[in-house]
């Protein structure tokens, strides 16, 4: 007996055990459809009201009480204060806890380019550290914010880009351009903000395609990733390193990476790593010259799809969804021993010190997995502090499921102190 026989038998046995669909399934589907359509109309109404409210609210709120941040000056000033706006989604005013700052957010949208192609586009709203408000910018296809939330590295529209801009978030102006020979599609700062990793692609990694008879856009299954630069931010210098796709090196198979699968530096700055969803351990590591290295022991619990990564002291790793003790919770993994504990939060986004994190979470008794807000959670505590308003559940938008780009959704960009 071969493995495929067992796979076949196991699947058939499992299918045979399935109880039939509940009676009235059609009515349930039709009811959901009606509800979504109604909600879509309601959502449009809410947006109109919000715009009016902003128009009235801004002059009242903007009475000089912000401007608490030092303007420049070298030293890192960590604000201990919590700035939360549980009534705002997407936020209009600064959200930050203990120096970890929501430096901006983007609103994703799939923009049709030709009959067969579209681009997953991010419209960024970036925090101006002087005004403490988020302002929309349409210039950038990709923004990585440096620790301290004063500077960002940006890529212009139409990826891959031939230059990287260093943007002053206070003035909104690009201070310096770093030209690159290999087109860059993604950027990530090192933990200390001194280095910048640029992932290079030959095609736009945010391209979406529609294939035969299809009604929705989907990312390409093939990757055009070519390698990475590790750039010194101060001088703009750094070498490009080729990283060949699995299909190039004679081993079996086409490339199985996501069309966007960016590189990043490990927290100690010694290695570059990236997710490898179809690989054995889901990630790969290289030295700064692009030579493949074995997984560093202290990085073996990293998950590329968990944004928070390692705690500032390196002892803990933010893990994936847990859902054991609470309906929505996530794992915290001991970087050395692999021991796990659970913490509140559906999706861990950024560390605040070594004991707290900012996460997405749904409300109590919330039925929709997408109706989430930013919250502050603490390891070993039941307390959860809301930081933003709820994101609109994307069940409200017809024709989209899951995490595709939709109106009403916003995706946070955090900066460490």
């Amino acid at each position, binding site marked *: *007996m*071969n*493995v*495929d026989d*067992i*796979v*076949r*038998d*196991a*699947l*058939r*046995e*499992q*299918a045979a055990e*399935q109880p*039939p*669909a509940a009676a009235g*399934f*059609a*009515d*349930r*589907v*039709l009811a*959901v*459809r009606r509800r979504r359509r109604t909600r879509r109309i309601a959502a449009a109404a809410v947006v109109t009201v919000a715009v009016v409210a902003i128009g009235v609210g801004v002059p009242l709120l903007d009475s000089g009480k912000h401007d608490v941040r030092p303007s420049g000056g070298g030293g890192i000033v960590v604000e201990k204060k919590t700035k939360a706006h549980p009534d705002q989604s997407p936020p209009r005013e600064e959200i930050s806890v203990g120096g970890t700052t929501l430096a901006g957010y983007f609103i994703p949208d799939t923009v049709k380019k030709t009959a067969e192609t579209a681009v997953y586009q991010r419209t960024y709203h970036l925090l101006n550290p002087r005004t403490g408000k988020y302002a929309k910018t349409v210039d950038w296809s990709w923004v990585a914010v440096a620790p301290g939330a004063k500077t960002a590295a940006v890529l212009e529209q139409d990826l891959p880009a031939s230059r990287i801009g260093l943007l002053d978030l206070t003035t909104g102006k690009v201070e310096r351009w770093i030209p690159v020979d290999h087109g860059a599609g993604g950027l990530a700062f090192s933990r200390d903000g001194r280095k910048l990793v640029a992932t290079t692609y030959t095609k736009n990694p945010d391209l979406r*395609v529609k*294939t*035969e*008879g*299809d*009604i*929705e856009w*989907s*990312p390409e*299954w*093939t990757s055009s990733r070519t390698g990475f630069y590790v750039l010194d931010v101060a001088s703009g210098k750094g070498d490009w390193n080729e990283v060949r796709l699995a*299909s190039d090196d*004679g*081993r*079996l*198979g*086409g490339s*199985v990476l996501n069309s966007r699968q960016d590189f990043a530096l490990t927290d100690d700055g010694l290695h570059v790593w990236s997710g490898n*969803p*179809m690989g*054995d351990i889901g990630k790969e590591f290289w030295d700064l010259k692009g030579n493949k290295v074995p997984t560093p022991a202290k990085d073996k619990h990293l998950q590329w*799809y*968990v944004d928070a990564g390692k705690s500032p002291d390196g002892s803990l790793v933010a893990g*994936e*969804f847990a*859902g054991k003790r609470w309906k*929505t919770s996530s794992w915290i993994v001991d970087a050395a021993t692999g021991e796990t504990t659970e913490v509140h939060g*559906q*999706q861990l986004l950024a560390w605040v010190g070594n004991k707290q994190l900012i996460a997405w979470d749904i409300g109590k008794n919330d039925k929709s*997995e997408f109706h989430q807000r930013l919250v502050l959670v603490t390891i070993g505590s039941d307390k959860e502090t809301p930081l933003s308003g709820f994101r609109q559940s994307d069940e409200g938008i*017809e024709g989209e*499921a*899951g*995490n*595709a780009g939709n109106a009403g959704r916003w995706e946070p960009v955090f900066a460490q102190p």
Partner: protein
Amino acid sequence: MNAEGLESFRDFVDSRSSALLKTAVLLCGGDQHAGEDLLQNALVRTAGRWQKIDEPEAYVRQVLYRQQVSRWRLKWPRREVSVAEPPEPAGSGEPGADTAAAAELRLVMRQALSRLTARQRTVLVLRYFEDLPEADVARLLGCSVGTVRSTTHRSLARLRQLAPELTALGPAQAERLESRDYSPVEVRP
């Protein structure tokens, strides 16, 4: 949707939802609730275009597969799949020992399947449950035959890794490929 459309939609769902649900649950690694959600979403989408669709079943299935492979990045509960405890391994001399061992192997396999990525599992469900040839899987998922082949290969390798009990088994057809893939890679029109 007009009254006639509503009626034919209801008829379609009543007659086909049990079969579709089987596929949906398999795609979700045995998670009944996730399978129902997946099917419900696919049917809601289908309802919106009901009167423009010629072959509803083929349409719903394609939405199911594609939705599932695009959903895999969702950071949402992978609900634990409850699987009955495997029976005690029977002594080799006893009658029925082979069947018990085979049943145990299927349970192990089921658990391993539930731990694959959605993309890996989808390819296996299409190849081994729906019995579709590689070219059809590629067309349904909108990828190349080479990608289907390598994904199948990697998924089987991952299963072996997740369930060491499978080591004793012979290689699947898909695992007996040459080390280099010479298949045509583009099937899109």
